[in-house]
């Protein structure tokens, strides 16, 4: 077997990797395929936002009687807006946040919770923690960055983001994300740096402080995510769940356990500590399923009954919710009870799929009670006497094909980031012999 060579830089051993090996490794090829799928969606959405024809009354007045080309343009835009609006319009009033935000919460909460759990495992000196910490934290930050790509895709005009720096809005949960991520992401990379550095003495000196700081920053992160959703006063699903940030943390941790089990099967299977890792993750998964299950029972009893009734039945979100309960909680609970590797892997896959449906049910569920229901007891309002028969007691708009393509692309971003970091810094192997 060829001996690997490393370059030492700032205490880091950077693996000398052949560029072809780096760019054409199997995980990178998977990432490229997913990114290519995402690219179709990104191009389409960019075109939709910036190159479609839209016209207002002012434009019509300006072109009237003038340039025939401008007239043609206005005519085309009117035709598109009047006859094709449903296809052209990207954002629906009934459901401003959709699958991009679902994917963001899914990947970001899962990734952050994974980093949080690794820090906890380090704090409590779990035997396998030092061996797997670097790999799992890198996996977690790659997930988080994939999620952030999704939210960046959701913003219609991200070029104006500099106003968040020039005009701070500390009362806004969304603004608080800016200072949070400015600290959180570099801090996580510093944690990973100290885990994989060859300056062992320095790493040891800072390890305890970093772990505790990491846990505090993670809790603050989930707390701010809770504020972000809590501020949406009319969406009672988001405001009624007690201690929303704890719910996010627990459900994120469940996604993280599912992801970590799958990751272990794919990347750590030949390691001597694989069995111990799976055993710990299996127990953590069982405990989290029980805690999340208890939370769901509480939620059903405290959330506004209008939301509960639509989420558990009588709306398209009900299928997402029950898929999550069955595939994400019940089936994995049964499978994780056994020590069978195959059942554990299937349980993890159930958690990964089920918790994605949970995020969908949460985001789409928040919007499910129509905001057009303005006068209590009168039901939702139609917007035209010819629409009366069309009025539904719920608000649900399925995601566009391009949106689905983009969220697939976001998974590709995560895989790409992880693979590059793993190839260069050998995060899976570097601490194979490390102990507390």
């Amino acid at each position: 077997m060829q001996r690997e060579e490393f370059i030492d830089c700032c205490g880091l051993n950077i693996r000398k990797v052949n560029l072809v090996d780096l760019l054409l490794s199997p995980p990178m090829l998977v990432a490229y395929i997913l990114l290519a799928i995402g690219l179709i969606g990104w191009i389409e959405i960019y075109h939709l936002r910036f190159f479609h024809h839209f016209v207002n009354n002012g434009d019509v007045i300006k072109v009237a009687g003038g340039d025939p080309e401008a007239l043609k343009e206005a005519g085309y835009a009117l035709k598109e807006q009047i006859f094709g609006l449903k296809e052209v319009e990207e954002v629906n009033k009934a459901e401003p946040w959709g699958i991009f935000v679902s994917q963001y919460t899914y990947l970001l909460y899962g990734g952050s919770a994974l980093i949080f759990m690794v820090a906890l495992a380090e704090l409590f000196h779990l035997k396998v923690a030092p061996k797997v910490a670097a790999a799992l934290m890198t996996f977690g930050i790659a997930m988080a960055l994939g999620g952030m790509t999704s939210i960046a895709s959701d913003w219609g005009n991200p070029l104006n983001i500099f106003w968040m720096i020039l005009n701070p809005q500390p009362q806004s949960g969304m603004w608080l994300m800016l200072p949070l991520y400015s600290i959180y992401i570099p801090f996580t990379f510093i944690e990973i740096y100290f885990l994989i550095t060859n300056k062992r003495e320095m790493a040891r000196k800072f390890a305890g402080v970093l772990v505790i700081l990491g846990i505090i920053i993670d809790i603050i992160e989930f707390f701010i995510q809770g504020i972000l959703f809590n501020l949406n006063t009319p969406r009672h699903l988001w405001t009624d769940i007690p201690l929303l940030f704890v719910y996010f943390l627990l459900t994120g941790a469940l996604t993280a356990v599912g992801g970590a089990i799958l990751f272990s099967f794919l990347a750590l299977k030949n390691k001597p500590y694989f069995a111990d890792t799976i055993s710990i993750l299996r127990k953590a998964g069982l405990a989290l399923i029980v805690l999340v299950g208890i939370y769901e029972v509480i939620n059903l009893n405290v959330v506004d009954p209008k939301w509960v009734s639509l989420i558990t039945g009588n709306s398209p979100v009900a299928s997402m919710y029950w898929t999550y309960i069955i595939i994400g909680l019940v089936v994995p609970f049964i499978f994780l009870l056994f020590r069978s590797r195959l059942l554990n892997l299937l349980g993890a896959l159930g958690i990964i799929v089920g918790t994605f449906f949970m995020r969908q049910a949460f985001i789409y569920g928040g919007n499910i009670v129509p905001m057009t229901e303005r006068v209590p007891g009168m039901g939702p309002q139609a917007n035209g006497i010819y629409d009366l028969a069309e009025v539904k007691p719920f608000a649900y708009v399925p995601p566009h094909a391009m949106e689905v393509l983009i969220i697939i692309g976001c998974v590709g971003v995560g895989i790409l980031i992880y693979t590059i970091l793993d190839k260069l810094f050998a995060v899976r192997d570097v601490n194979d012999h490390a102990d507390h």
Partner: protein
Amino acid sequence: MANYAMALEYQNCIDCRACEVACKDENEVMLGADKQRIWVGIVEGGETLADVFLNFYPSQCNHCVDAPCVTVCPTGASHFVEGGIVKVDYDMCIICKGCMEACPYDARFVDETRHAVDKCTFCDGRIQEYGTTACSATCPTKVRTFGDLEDPNSDLVKLLENREFFVLKEDEGTMPKLFYLVPQDKEYAKRTLGDVKTHKWSEFKAKYQQATDEQKSQWKKA
């Protein structure tokens, strides 16, 4: 300092949509799109010829005293201007749609011609010159009465002092400034208003005044 609001005699609405046309003309709203700055919501009820009804609820942004859309905006694009009008600075909007989620009245939309979230502005450029909004000036049945809540001689305050009214989604605590006047036919009102709470201005005035005074420091110069 003025505090603008609107009373709606919604029983007068005939769903002619002249207000929507006037709004699109005045504010250069994207054509072809339904239900943007202002709209008419429709609710039907009753089962027999004796009790069937069709209510039109002309609506728009409620310019809430405690507007959640302003609170959640991460860039400060959503803000209050003089008169307590809630506005959007298009050059600052990132279209995160947080304000659309926070608004209980579905009053915001993405205006593709401006690449920003937009909403009713109470025609703030127009009211300095003409004293009212395009929608209220156009309405053939005088549904809308626009005015200043702090002027006791305004038509708006006089109307509110003499009539009962209700506001939309009062429980959300946003203190909306669209006041829907309860139909004068008590029986009809009772049958067609669902579980809505009705109020008198004497009950509301102090509460609104106090909340407005607390918010005034946030109002920017128009």
